[in-house]
């Protein structure tokens, strides 16, 4: 999981890589692109091979991040 420090440096358009979706089939990772950039909340669009999986939202609560999937 990304740290709060990493979270604070993320800007719109930045990319994060999650683990591959289908181990053995391909090493292609799930990619999270920062879609909206707020001080305490950022939204990510998750894609695999360019196909949209959905949106993740990370909210900062003090020193912790809580994630939700939309």
């Amino acid at each position: 999981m990304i740290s709060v420090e990493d979270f604070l440096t993320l800007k719109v358009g930045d990319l994060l890589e999650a683990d591959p979706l289908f181990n053995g089939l391909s090493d292609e990772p799930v990619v999270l692109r920062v879609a909206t950039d707020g001080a305490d909340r950022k939204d990510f669009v998750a894609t695999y091979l360019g196909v949209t999986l959905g949106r993740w939202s990370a909210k900062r609560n003090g020193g912790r991040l809580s994630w939700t999937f939309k």
Partner: protein
Amino acid sequence: MDFQVNKSDLYSVADILGMTVELDYATGKLSGKAERAMFLGDLSLPLKPKIAGSLLLPECIFAAVNVLGNLALLVVISESGPQRCTVHVLNLAKMDQLDTWLDKKKPKTRGEALELLGSAVVKSYRRVNTTKWEPM
């Protein structure tokens, strides 16, 4: 049905999908679903891939699998050849409804299915052996 399903093919597909795949010879349908997780470091997102539709023909078996969001897979097992077992990554935003696609389109071969899917096919893989796949 003339074409007998090779169980190692089903197991291979089941491994990739992380699910148990069952074949009902009476209905001629495949079924299977699973609960697994996608990871971003320690963060996990639940995934529930499920076989949404299938089509069993004498020469070819098709399984359409819903994964997450617009992501789906088409698994094709044909009678023989180097492309006996293939997996095709699909973008649901570029095709008709997945769960009825096979019943409505009724492709007879892998090639016909891929032609009907057109740009909805994002990438294709073929099984090299029981553990190895490669892009087509």
